[in-house]
């Protein structure tokens, strides 16, 4: 039984073409799954469906075999255990860095203030931002903000972490400091699903790459196979464009 099982998920925003049109995907424990595909193919939508930020029209999403989509699901409980990090960081601007990290553990998990803070400082030290703990987000660089956002999600001790193009809003020289954290998390065995345009990174870090196109997973496989020997015509064309743009 996979950690996350996605079965025939369909989702439409009311347009003519549904955004997700029968997605099937398994994420095993400790796997790092990369979603690639052209802009607008539904990567973000799929991630948002997994932690209940969007509802799905039909199909099923299961977590360790338990259905977590559809009516009657406690989405707050689901989101406690499924973390997501956004492209645009979305730190809370009115809270200091450490308060950003401790807010949910305290208010949602009911942890004690001291305990939550201790854990937050531990996590911040790991990303070498403990000296910024009392700063406000607008005093941090984009890369630092994104690292804090990852730590904020980690503070909830998630079962699986979803990362939605977490480096797309960053200046090129700040990308690596964020990707380093993802590498560390993979080494620790964190299960992750990431939507990314960093093909080199996807190739290096992932256990499985899924090419999303036309609302379905068009091709999936180990990174070596997808990147060196794509079977599908569309995958090949997409990767060709990426290579031409100098991103691989």
């Amino acid at each position: 039984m996979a950690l996350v099982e996605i079965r025939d998920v369909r989702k439409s925003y009311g347009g003519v073409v549904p955004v997700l049109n029968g997605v099937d995907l398994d994420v095993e424990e400790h796997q790092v799954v990369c979603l690639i595909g052209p802009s607008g193919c539904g990567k973000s939508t799929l991630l948002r469906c997994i932690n209940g930020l969007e509802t799905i029209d039909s199909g099923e999403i299961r977590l360790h075999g338990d259905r977590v989509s559809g009516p009657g699901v406690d989405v707050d409980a689901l989101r406690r255990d499924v973390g997501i990090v956004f492209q645009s960081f979305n730190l809370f601007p009115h809270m200091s860095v450490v308060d950003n990290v401790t807010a949910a553990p305290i208010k949602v998990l009911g942890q004690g203030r001291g305990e939550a803070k201790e854990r937050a400082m531990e996590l911040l030290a790991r990303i070498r931002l403990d000296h910024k703990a009392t700063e406000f987000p607008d005093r941090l660089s984009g890369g630092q903000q994104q690292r804090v956002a990852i730590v904020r999600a980690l503070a909830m001790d998630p079962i699986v972490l979803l990362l939605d193009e977490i480096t797309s809003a960053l200046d090129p020289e700040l990308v690596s400091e964020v990707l380093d954290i993802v590498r560390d998390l993979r080494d620790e065995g964190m299960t992750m699903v990431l939507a990314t345009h960093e093909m080199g990174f996807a190739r290096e870090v992932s256990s499985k790459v899924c090419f999303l196109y036309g609302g379905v997973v068009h091709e999936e496989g180990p990174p070596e196979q997808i990147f060196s020997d794509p079977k599908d015509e569309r995958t090949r064309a997409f990767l060709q464009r990426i290579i031409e743009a100098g991103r691989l």
Partner: protein
Amino acid sequence: MDEPAATAAPEPTPPPRIRAPRAIRKWTPAPPKSAKGVALGAIAAVVALIGLGLFSVSAVREGLASVGFEDASTDIALYGLVALLLALFVPALKGLSGASKADRLVAVDLAEARAETAAAREISRVAIGYAAAAAIVFLFGLFLVANEVAVGKTFFDLALIVETFHLVGSAFWVNVEIFMVAEALVLVWGLLIAVARLAPGKAGAPVRLIATAYVDLFRGLPAIIAIYLVGFGLPLTDLPILRDMTPTMFAILALTLTYGAYVSEVYRSGIESVHWSQTAAARSLGFSHMQTLRFVVVPQAVRRIIPPLLNDFISLQKDTALVSVIGTVDAFNQAKIIASNHFNLSSVTTVAVLFVLITIPQARLVDKLIERDQKRMRAGG
């Protein structure tokens, strides 16, 4: 076009050009427009002002004499004021000399001439601006003393103002009490309504409906009618709690209901101005709808709503004067009583001044806060 080969001379073809070079138009420097006109205007304005000043001072002295007030030191002060205005000749003349200097400079150094012209124009405009402001003051003085100081006596009878100040002043505390309590209640009540209007989902629909109906009703209802209905209507019902309420309490209730509707809209627009991605971030961490509002959205909204909130509070403070319609003896009601006893409105002037005085600092505070927020916005935070 049919036979280009026939007309073309057998010259070697020039190398292909991607784009023909474009002719560059030359920049022609323009001389500055002379500032002489505005400088002469400034001198004329100051001369006219001095004339108006002398005329007004003699009119004021005549007016004061007609009410038996003649005093050498007042005369000195009045003429001193006019003499002070002679100082406006300094910028006016400076402007004129600057303007003619600039005109001479045009032939020598255009950049210098431009700078000189700009300076001359600026200083002439300063002189005109002050002259206009002083003229308005003089005209107001003339209005006060016209018809044997009729206006002055009706509105600004100093003796009466001093004599009745303690009455009006202590009645003003009733206004202060009403708006302080009403403001505190409005802060809470408005937030409740705003949250109700944002109640999520199907289950929230009836709550949203009721809240919307309430807001529509009280935003449309003139405050004076709300006060009248509440203040005269509710006591007639003879219901247990309502029976024992004082007119002041009814006034507070009516103003809270009216301004709660306005303020709920202020809250709501503030809440909706917080970007949805903040809600997404909070919800993704497991915060519930109410927790998201409480810990993430409302704290960010509050900064932005303080200026419009203060504006509504200023209106509320002014509207406390409306409670006189239900017989509450507030400052305005007290002043009206005094006014009808003395056939003179000076006590009402006292109330007017009191209201203006408490409003000014708040208005400045609002300006400051808006300025601060705009600075922050430009700084991109």
